[in-house]
């Protein structure tokens, strides 16, 4: 398999802050590779290194066979980049934005229309509208069209779904999947843990370091423990009661339930009695499968 990006031991500092530390990964052709992590984890810094906007202090990265330090001129012709804020000109219309980016990359909208058709057709009815007047979801689609217009080999999307409504988010992932048939490799970052499942492989990133790289399903399996979901109407009381139970290893609120693991990794049914004694009523416990977020929490704990 062809490596589109090969990074080994990448490090980058800003003053005294370490933004990235010993980051290594490989990304294969036509893969959708996700970097999942909270704000400030180093995703944007990493993406700026991939797009040749920043140089790493340490380590080596080759992108499409070229070195990220020396090959930047060549690379910049073949990378499509969508930064965290959608890089559109609000005072230009949808059409003008697209045409502008096409010219800048030395191509025309016509030439690669088939590539962007699936995305651009959603917003084409509004092509005379100023980009500043579009909704978040439409801006996102236009920005993606602009990033794709020169048929790049590598598409780098920095938090493309942040600040976009749920409907547009789910549409967006469908579009990305479709791009695979054009042999475009996609690197994407997101703070939404649930979006990890839509990637072929993900890297969990936290404080500038990669916690794990794997297929999303495998990352869930990496959790490696029995996980139980506990619900009760009085959540605050429930959490405190769970934590005071000696056999409990971890107890974290998780949506409308609390996810717990046991020290012995086996369900200890004396917990019911304990909860009862602590005044927690109507507690229900069921075994559940770990999600990406559970694995992320577990990996953060180990750090």
């Amino acid at each position, binding site marked *: 398999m062809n490596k589109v990006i090969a990074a080994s031991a990448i490090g980058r500092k800003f003053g005294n802050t370490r933004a990235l530390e010993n980051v290594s990964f490989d990304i294969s052709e036509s893969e959708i590779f996700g970097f999942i*992590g*909270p*704000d*400030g*984890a180093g995703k944007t810094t990493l993406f700026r290194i991939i797009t040749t906007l920043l140089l790493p202090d340490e380590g080596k990265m080759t992108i499409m066979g070229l070195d990220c330090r020396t090959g930047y001129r060549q690379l910049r012709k073949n990378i499509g980049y969508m930064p965290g804020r959608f890089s559109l000109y609000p005072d230009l219309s949808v059409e003008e934005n697209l045409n502008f980016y096409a010219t800048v990359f030395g191509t025309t909208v016509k030439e690669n229309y088939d590539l962007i058709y699936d995305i651009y*057709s*959603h*917003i*084409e*009815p*509004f092509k005379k509208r100023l980009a500043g007047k579009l*909704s*978040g*979801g*439409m801006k996102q689609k236009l920005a993606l069209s602009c990033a794709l217009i020169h048929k790049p080999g590598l598409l780098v999307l920095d938090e493309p779904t*942040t*600040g976009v*409504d*749920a*409907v547009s988010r*789910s*549409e967006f*992932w*469908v579009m990305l999947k479709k791009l695979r048939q054009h042999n475009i490799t996609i690197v994407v970052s997101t*703070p*939404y*843990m*649930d979006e990890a499942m839509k990637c072929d492989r993900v890297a969990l990133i*936290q404080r500038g370091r990669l916690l794990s790289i794997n297929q999303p399903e495998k990352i869930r399996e990496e959790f490696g423990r029995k996980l139980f979901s506990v619900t009760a*109407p*009085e*959540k*605050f*009381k429930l*959490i405190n009661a769970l934590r005071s139970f000696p056999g409990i290893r971890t107890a*974290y*609120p*998780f*949506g*409308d339930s609390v996810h717990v693991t046991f020290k012995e990794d086996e369900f200890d049914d004396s917990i019911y009695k304990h909860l009862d004694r602590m005044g927690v*009523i109507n507690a229900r416990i069921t075994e559940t499968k770990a999600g990406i*977020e559970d694995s*992320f*929490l577990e990996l*953060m*704990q180990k750090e």
Partner: protein
Amino acid sequence: MAKQTVSETGSTGVPLTSNTVITVRNLVKKFGNFIANDNLNFEVFRGEIFGFLGANGAGKTTALRILSGLSSPTSGKVMVAGYDAKKEPEQIKKNIGYMCQKFSLYNDLTVRENIMLYGGIYGMSKKLILERTAKLLERLQFEEYGGRLIADLPLGLKQKLAFSVAVMHEPKIVFLDEPTGGVDPITRRQFWEMIYETAARGITVFVTTHYMDEAEYCDRISIMNEGRIVALDTPANLKKQYNADSVEEVFIKIARPSPADPGMLQKNPKGNN
């Protein structure tokens, strides 16, 4: 409008049918011919964590401004913390707290200066401010950070502090705007535990967000679309009703693309996926 099914108990365990802190009856807000809020009806109870969801432009912000006394309804009755939003907005402002993700603390002031400032704004006595500041810093294990500038704090700490400051004057209701968007999973959980604790003290927590996973943590959620409330229930009930695994799925099933986006309507009649 979805039928209101009120869960019998909230995080406090207090029966929720008593003790309403927000009552909204037939709320309409118009801007010229544009109807931003179209006949809203709901109640929020003491100690409840209430999620207020909707896409951008659904009318969330307009409703929120009315509830926090910043704007007056065109018609309908809105009671917040016992005061009428039309007649006594100033009283409402004294009895609520507010925290939003983007702006809440001054970056160029220290932690302690920020706390003192907010205490002063809410008219607390100097003695009370000092007392609560000390307590607040202690509870957050923040004593060593007291003299640091806000700008130098990590995001997670900033948000926890912002929340503590927003409830420092013991308001009846605290409004939170996307409180945990973008924070790491551990901090996020610590944050929700703070919210649970606050609710358990009897303070109502009103969360507006478009992060659907934040909605999962709420006692009840309402979903707005095109100025109307189209669903209002506990997350569990909504998931059951719409046969969905997550609130996100519920949301996608409910929120159709707006008529301003006919292209999307034709392309993906069901929102796809």
